């Protein structure tokens, strides 16, 4: 049985502006292995968010294809969405409801029974230590709790893989560490994770493999250790600086 979860084949994405066409992604190909954390790294405008939006089915590619178990994800879009969890950069919890209700609605959207929803909520509350704010609105939460609730909601329907778009941006260092812990817990559960991040230390700690993108192009992919070894540098940050200084 293949260990490949997703195959991204020659994906390109262009946006037509008023004056010119912007090529956000050009001919990107890579494979995502089951159960891994794949870090998507690159400077601003590299195409990380564009790629994660395509994988999340928020936007279609201009050309190329995304295959899951050898079949295009667009052949069964709804089935694919049931297997996917997407946690955006800005947690989009509904402020009109309590956090528990947010989780309940999410479970219902994916056809979970009331009993399953309750069990899943109990499990997630314990996993992310969320009990204190379960009956509160998202309006009263700090950034760290918001992010943890958003992560919990992403997991309500037991997705096979999740896309985390800059999950720790703007958070204090100690809260970032809490979120990292949560992400590591997801990996322990066998969930495949695509992590877009600006933070190199985050990618170094969390990612099994790192994919570098720049100006919409795939540069290379390797393990953090492999990258450091190849570039004879101390940290991933040094590798990153060296790579983009060379341009």
């Amino acid at each position, binding site marked *: 049985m293949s260990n490949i979860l997703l195959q991204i084949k020659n994906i390109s994405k262009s946006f037509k502006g008023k004056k010119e066409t912007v090529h956000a992604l050009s001919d990107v190909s890579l494979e995502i292995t089951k159960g891994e954390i794949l870090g998507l790294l690159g400077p601003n405008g590299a195409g990380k968010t564009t790629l994660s939006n395509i994988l999340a089915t928020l936007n279609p590619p201009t050309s190329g294809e995304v295959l899951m178990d050898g079949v295009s994800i667009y052949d069964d879009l709804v089935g694919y969405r049931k297997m996917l969890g*997407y946690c955006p950069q800005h947690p*989009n919890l509904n402020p009109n409801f309590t956090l528990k209700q947010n989780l309940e609605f999410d479970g219902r959207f994916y056809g979970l029974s009331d009993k399953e929803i309750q069990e899943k909520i109990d499990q997630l509350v314990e996993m992310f230590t969320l009990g204190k704010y379960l009956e509160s609105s998202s309006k009263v939460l700090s950034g760290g709790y918001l992010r943890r609730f958003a992560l919990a909601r992403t997991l309500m329907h037991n997705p096979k893989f999740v896309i985390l778009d800059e999950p720790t941006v703007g958070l204090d260092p100690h809260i970032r560490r809490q979120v990292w812990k949560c992400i590591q817990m997801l990996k322990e559960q066998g969930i495949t994770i695509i992590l877009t991040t600006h933070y190199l230390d985050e990618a170094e700690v969390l990612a099994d493999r790192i994919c570098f993108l720049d100006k919409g192009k795939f540069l290379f992919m390797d393990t953090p250790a492999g990258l450091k070894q190849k570039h004879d540098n101390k940290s991933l940050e040094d590798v990153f600086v060296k790579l983009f200084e060379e341009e």
Partner: protein
Amino acid sequence: MFNMGYFRVISIMLKRDLLGIRKAFWGNLINVFSWVIITVGIKIYVLPYFGVSNTYGSFVLIGAIASVANMDIMHRMMIFANDITTERQDINYDLLLPIPSKLVFVERALFLSIAGFVVSMLVLPVGKFLFWNHINLGAVSWFRFVSILILINILFSYFAIYIASKISGLHSMVKVWMRVIFPLWFLGGFEFSWFALKDMAPNFAYLDLCNPYIYATEGLRSAVFGPAEYIPFWICFCVLALFTFFIGWCALINLTRKLDAV
């Protein structure tokens, strides 16, 4: 292919959206009815001083029903448009749900329609209660009234989504409001009937037949007062249905394009 799973997701989305507006419901109702009461009250109690018939109040009350639906839906459209032109937080969450993307927009139109229907449906009983002797409901066909009101709300909702798909921010919202929505509404027979317009300015009246709002107000008046002085009910109903189909189709295509949705 539509399946029951989609229906379940859409019904949960509707429940979520309708529950989400319950807190603001009464405040919104006060806003709407302040406008209705002042507008109709002036027609009933002040304008007769200038020689206007005092039945004009009930005439305007029926026009106000379509106006209230329009106002309520366009107000909610602005919230929606603000989301899709900025962070796209709400719409992106919905676009990841296990239904085809276009059904997300259909749900949005249904939500706007239901919210608009509930508020506009209340105008007639509240108007009757407040202006009892001045509002004659002797000839009303409730079946026709409710049917056309549902259709009007669906049409306005798809129109709102179409507008949302065309605007690029707060500034263009104001522009669209002043240049598109207000003229369509005001020339849509809120304060006059199409036959009155035809008597006074026939060319303009025929041009006004391209305005869907005129069929909304005429259809409602035809259902409430009878067809004698208005465009026949079923003509209004059929034309509104055609507009709904056409605008709905354009709205779904344009919004999919604007959001670059799958």
